[in-house]
């Protein structure tokens, strides 16, 4: 009744092929943008920024990246943590070598460097797939972490192997460093998230996205209809690594400010992002955000409820939190094996027909 095409007339091709063809969808999208850009910055504080919104947005970028590779192109990767480390160390080297470079350029360049590294580690995907490819990308994960630990050039020969992000400004507002305000950090990341999600959405709707999906659904058939697997797969690795590299760069520069590679970008991070896209929904932009929200926001929420509101001892709360998250993951996957995004699609279908389903 509320949620249908009828009456929503399209008068041009551009209107007909827009991202959100339904009026209600479109208004919802504008409303979210309005809140994110014009309401949140006025109410945000340090806690909400550092503990909730910034990690959520950064992990959303990472899961968008992995979703392009795994969800759209069907290439399983366990190297996400390693590629994030590439982004982080690239941004560190760029920041310290070229102090006058704008932070936005540094972040984007880190993405480009990571894309290059991603293409190199994507080469095995031309011969192997599935579990075998997962193992090859796992090797990338371990190799990259080892490299950043072993070669002192990457951390500018600091005694501890830690990298620390210096202060950088954007339009006169500090976005990295300890005295950056919550608003500046949030808006800086939000702009990137918006741009990258917009790009991902349009890439996956276009020719290149369709070639990825063709490869994912059946690579031999895709080849027969004229999709070049070399180009498609390597493009997927490049774009995916670009996103993940940006996520890694932001993770280091804006969010944490100081990282050590083994702890911040270990194998657990690769799994975390993989879980995000599986729970959120493979091959869905919205799913990337839902997955990131599920795994980043849920623990914070549970912790605040159990410790803050219920007053449980913190160790009990920490253990219970793991149990609850694990249970919720299983529940979600049993009830909706295609991820939470599928639930949303299903709901939309129902809403279109409601209240006369026949």
């Amino acid at each position, binding site marked *: 009744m509320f949620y249908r095409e009828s009456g929503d007339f399209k008068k041009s091709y551009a209107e007909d092929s827009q991202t959100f063809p339904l009026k209600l969808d479109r208004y919802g999208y504008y409303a979210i943008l309005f809140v994110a850009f014009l309401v949140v910055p006025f109410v945000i504080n340090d806690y909400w920024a*550092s503990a909730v919104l910034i990690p959520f947005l950064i992990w959303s970028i990472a899961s968008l990246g992995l979703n392009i590779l795994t969800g759209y192109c069907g290439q399983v990767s366990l190297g996400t943590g390693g590629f994030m480390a590439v982004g982080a160390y690239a941004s560190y080297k760029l920041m310290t070598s070229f102090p006058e470079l704008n932070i936005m350029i540094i972040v984007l360049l880190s993405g480009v460097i990571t894309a290059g590294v991603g293409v190199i580690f994507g080469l095995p995907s031309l011969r192997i797939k599935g579990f075998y490819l997962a193992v090859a990308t796992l090797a990338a994960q371990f190799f990259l972490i080892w490299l950043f630990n072993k070669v002192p050039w990457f951390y500018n020969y600091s005694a501890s192997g*830690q990298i620390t992000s210096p202060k950088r400004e954007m339009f006169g507002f500090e976005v990295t460093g300890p005295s950056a305000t919550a608003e500046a950090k949030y808006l800086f990341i939000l702009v990137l998230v918006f741009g990258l999600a917009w790009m991902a959405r349009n890439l996956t709707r276009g020719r290149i996205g369709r070639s990825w999906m063709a490869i994912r659904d059946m690579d031999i058939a895709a080849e027969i209809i004229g999709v070049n697997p070399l180009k498609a797969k390597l493009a997927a690795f490049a774009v995916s690594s670009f996103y993940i590299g940006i996520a890694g760069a932001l993770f280091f520069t804006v969010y*944490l400010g*100081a990282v*050590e590679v083994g702890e911040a970008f270990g194998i657990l991070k690769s799994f975390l992002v993989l879980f995000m896209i599986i729970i959120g929904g493979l091959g869905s932009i919205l799913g990337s955000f839902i997955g990131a929200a599920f795994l980043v926001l849920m623990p914070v929420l549970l912790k605040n409820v159990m410790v803050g509101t219920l007053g449980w001892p913190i160790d009990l*709360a920490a253990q219970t939190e793991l149990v609850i998250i694990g249970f919720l993951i299983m529940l979600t996957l049993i009830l909706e094996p295609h991820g939470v995004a599928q639930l949303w699609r299903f709901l939309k279908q129902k809403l279109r027909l409601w209240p006369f389903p026949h």
Partner: protein
Amino acid sequence: MKLKKLAAYAVAATMAASPVLAQLVFPSLSYRTGPFGANGAEVADGFADYMTLLNERDGGIGGVLTNVIECETGYSTEKGVECYEATKGEGALIYQPLSTGMTYQLIPKTAADGIPMLTTGYGRTSVANGAVFPWVFNFPANYWNGASAAVNYMLAENDGSLEGKTVALLYHNSAYGKEPIPTLEALAEMYGFDLTLLPIDSPGQEQKSQWLQIRRESPDYALLWGWGVMNQVAIQEASNIRFPMENFIGVWWSGSENDVIPAGMAADGYKALTFHAVGTDFPMFDDMQKYVVDAGLAAGSGENVGTVLYNRGMYGAMLAAEAAKVAQEMNGVAQIDAAMMRDGLENLVVTDETMAAIGLQGFGPNFEVSCENHGGPGLVAVQQWNAADQKWTIITDFEPTDMEVIQPLIDADSAAYAAENGIEPGCN
């Protein structure tokens, strides 16, 4: 329904009541879960119990109750950030994050927010230079003191010469484990011993290959810079290859009961560094038993009172409490803020009288903090494990370390930090 209402009232009541009460807030970024949880829990218990003791016995510090806000980090820096942001608005006076990685993260943040940080025996060693790091303190001893103390001990055992000896350093492959390397390298050059570096990736359950290498090269000494489960595995592996335990020396974070008990009798003779006493032979512990443990207010089960890590957590709390007292005297107010706390830390003087008044005479070194020296005297002793009695015994005095080697390294590292971050070093 009734219960819900009751709970709502209770929440509302506590929320209404809490801002009225004056409090001294000591956040405790602890970790009771994960691979380092067994160790983290003891330190956190010691910290919380000492603050409880002050509340129960003395009515707080200078008449103001202490409030320990505990926040679980799981030794993860991301959760550490969350905990820091969650607690800093509650009037936090001082942070003691108990993690070198987290310390690195918080050094610039605490300076920007104006909250002091005390990293007793961990963290970034060069914060000892208070001219560059006005908000961070790491008295009474730091990693480089530890490295030097281990070398001094080996020197004493070998009649003052380590020429041609081989030493292997097994370290946690993180900022924490890498800290002692520059000092050990400088000392290796000075005394002519051969240093082998063996990194072990966190959490450190897998170290077969490193021990294979030790077995092959059979170094004269092995040093251990580990934490949590890594220590237990290392000591077990050492006993498996029959490495002589008396030549195996751990830093103070690798010398707790948790680390040696799993290896049983095989761990007998293992040595570790320490900068404070062990056991409960101090009058303060009677009060602790009476006011905290017997009253059922202990943070843990009360069984670990007197263990190495419990004592260290308690010592950290004690230093913070003493600094708070100094700050109260300096400013003539009981309800101090974080900036006053910093001044209190910088003017802290620990003498025999202070320690005796607390009931901890001889527990830790006497020292005086100044702007130039945030690191204390760096006195370190060696303790040895007696597996039959299940007890640590201190086998040397608290001896000075080689500041002539360490001070130039501190100056160089802090100068590099100052240059990187545009800090104008200075004491005023």
